[in-house]
């Protein structure tokens, strides 16, 4: 359709008249930039403003809805033009989202000059060598927040590992993967793309030449004893102490406000009728996203217990074998009732055997996994290669996975990451094949919705 353009006439466009230039005009977080401006009002004091965004994941009613970002304009420094209307200053690229940022010199509410700066994503590994199982910290600065800029996919020796995002962390993602494979160099490569690496990004309508679609770094695996992860139990979230139940009326409290399935809760109810029966229950969710029946909230009875002569109820009970999330416990005696909110957190209940014979069966059991569109699955990564995902909604937080052990003897590493199961795509092209679902979120601290732990396991094939 080249002919079309012959008909079209160029149109004038009024950019601000003063000129603002940067050297360099792109670079990673921390780059020192020399700025020069000309054509400014002589002697004027202006504000140098950095445009960015306040971005956040949006999850409403257990449904993933993408990212929302409101524009921000942050004054960085004041600049005074000389008698010739020129100014020179410098600034350091802040730790912020990557890709294109507008900047401007502003006098009052008037934009005098505008120029963009491209924040380039940067990958660093630490350490860069070590024996099998060495935790490798993968740090990426300058990740974006816009749909096609918000993630980079990590490939370990060309095997898909997962993706890194930094919506809630202003463009900086940190993940830990374990050195896997044979002694020698291993390539860790980040490739841009919405769902997987988009391999011809340079031909994308969104391609910005200053930003490489691929960045890579090498980790050298050295001989030596395998480094093993800590006990899985220690990788669950630490239990949070509960605030004391206060007030004069009926109240319910506990020693902890969170815990993994089976961890003990010492409940203390007060203000109930003396020696009266007290029914205890908690609220959960039942259903799935597969059968078509949807889901609904359900009250789960725990039994009826007797208050003592002082109207107190003292109980020790295990954290229910149920779904991750806030569970509201209710103690009720006639018209008297009190509530207490407790969070069930995910845990690895069992994994093994180790050692396992080549090709033997491994069994993984998780408890307390979630149910929402962002919390109901865990993704599995074996030796930095993505295997698939497992869902625990229909099984009330229980995930049991059977795996075939690799044929190669030695230590192997299984990592479990939170993910986004499904939701409403915010892709600008409105295609569901373009979204970020069921991918291991290696920077799991940036997971939308629930805060969920990652788990790092190991087993020996022998």
């Amino acid at each position, binding site marked *: 359709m080249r002919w079309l353009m012959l008909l079209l006439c160029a149109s004038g466009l009024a950019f601000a008249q003063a000129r603002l230039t940067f050297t360099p005009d792109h670079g990673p977080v921390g780059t020192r930039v020399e700025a020069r401006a000309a054509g400014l009002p002589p002697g004027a004091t202006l504000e140098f403003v950095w445009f960015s965004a306040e971005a956040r994941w949006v999850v409403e009613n257990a449904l993933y809805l993408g990212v929302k970002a409101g524009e921000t304009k942050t004054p960085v420094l004041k600049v005074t033009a000389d008698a010739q209307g020129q100014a020179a200053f410098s600034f350091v690229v802040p730790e912020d989202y990557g890709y294109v940022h507008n900047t401007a010199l502003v006098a009052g509410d008037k934009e005098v000059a505008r120029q963009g700066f491209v924040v380039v994503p940067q990958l660093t590994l630490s350490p860069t060598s070590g024996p099998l199982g060495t935790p490798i910290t993968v740090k990426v600065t300058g990740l974006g927040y816009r749909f096609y800029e918000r993630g980079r996919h990590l490939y370990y020796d060309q095997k898909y590992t997962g993706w890194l995002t930094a919506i809630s962390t202003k463009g900086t993602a940190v993940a830990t993967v374990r050195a896997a494979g044979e002694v020698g160099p291993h390539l860790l490569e980040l490739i841009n793309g919405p769902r997987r690496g988009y391999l011809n990004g340079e031909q994308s309508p*969104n391609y910005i030449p200053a930003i490489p679609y691929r960045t890579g770094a090498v980790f050298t695996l050295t001989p030596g004893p395998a480094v093993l992860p800590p006990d899985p139990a220690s990788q669950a979230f630490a239990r949070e102490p509960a605030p004391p139940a206060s007030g004069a009326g009926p109240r319910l409290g506990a020693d902890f406000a969170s815990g993994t399935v089976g961890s003990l809760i010492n409940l203390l109810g007060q203000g109930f009728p003396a020696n009266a029966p007290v029914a205890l229950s908690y609220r959960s969710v039942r259903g799935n996203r597969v059968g078509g029946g949807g889901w609904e909230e359900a009250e789960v009875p725990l039994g009826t217990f007797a208050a003592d002569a002082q109207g107190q109820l003292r109980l020790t009970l295990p954290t229910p074998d149920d779904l991750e999330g806030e569970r509201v416990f209710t103690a009720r005696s006639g018209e008297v009732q009190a509530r207490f909110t407790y969070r069930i957190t995910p845990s690895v209940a069992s994994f093994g055997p180790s050692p396992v014979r080549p090709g033997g069966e491994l069994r993984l059991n998780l408890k307390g996994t979630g149910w929402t569109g962002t919390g109901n699955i865990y993704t599995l990564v074996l030796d930095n290669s993505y295997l698939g995902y497992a869902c625990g909604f229909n099984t009330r937080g229980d995930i049991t996975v059977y795996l075939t052990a690799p044929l190669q003897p030695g230590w192997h590493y299984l990592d479990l990451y939170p993910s986004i199961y499904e939701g409403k795509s915010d892709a600008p092209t409105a295609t569901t094949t373009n979204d970020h679902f069921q991918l291991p979120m290696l920077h799991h601290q940036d997971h939308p919705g629930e805060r969920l732990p990652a788990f790092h396991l190991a087993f020996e094939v022998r």
Partner: protein
Amino acid sequence: MRSIFVWMAACFSLTALAAPKYFIQADVVRGSAGAQGAVCVANSVFFPGEQVVWRAVVFDLATQARLSEEQIKQLGLAVTVTLENGANLNMRYGPHPPDPNAPKREAFWSTSYQIPADAPVGTLKWSMTAKDKDGNTGAFTPIGQDVGLAVLTIAKAQAAAPQAAAADGQALYGQYCASCHQANGQGLAGAFPPLAGSRVVTGDAAYLARVVLFGLQGPITVRGQNYDGNMPAFGSLSDAQVAAILTYVRSAWGNAAGAVSAATVQAERAKPGSPQDNHAKYPK
């Protein structure tokens, strides 16, 4: 040829204008003037010197029917693109292609913006409005601008080369240079000068970078042989790619000059240059 707008079908949005009468489907494509990539394809990132083209069709909201040329005239319809900086671009309605004998023709609204070479880079929001002589309106805002999507970005064309490519000057030489200067750097007698043993190649790195970036036209003498050719400019290569090529040719085939940095190339790229200027400054 309604299909060209199909991809945008889910992207139109009606703004808060009171009782819109029209809805608009629109897209943005790269125009031919100054194009540094495929033309007439949907595009979001444009380079200075390129042409941004907006295309649109307008529908009657009540009937869902696309307005014909006759209806547009009767309604006195005007369609305008408004950019974030306040600039307005009036669209024109007409058939494309202009050749009345073309096998397929379609009429739609279009306008363009030629990005100046010195335009600031950055994101630029835009919207489109339609208004008839009675004040009835319709509007189009690209989806996602309100949540931070950069629908239109002006970016510098200079490339940060893929790391692997930048490191491999020999491969780049083979791709871009060897067809003329030959893989052995000996050129073709009388047609393409040799790079092996060339004092220009092993001389001033900045000048050599300018030859690659801007080309060279006119008679020269290399190793006692006269050439009168026209070397094209390779300014589309990134600084890192040019640096890798130059580093390679300065160290291959017995040449023994120093490496060339991307910064050197970047500095030379920033200066004006032309094949004629390079010839005028060709080392005597």
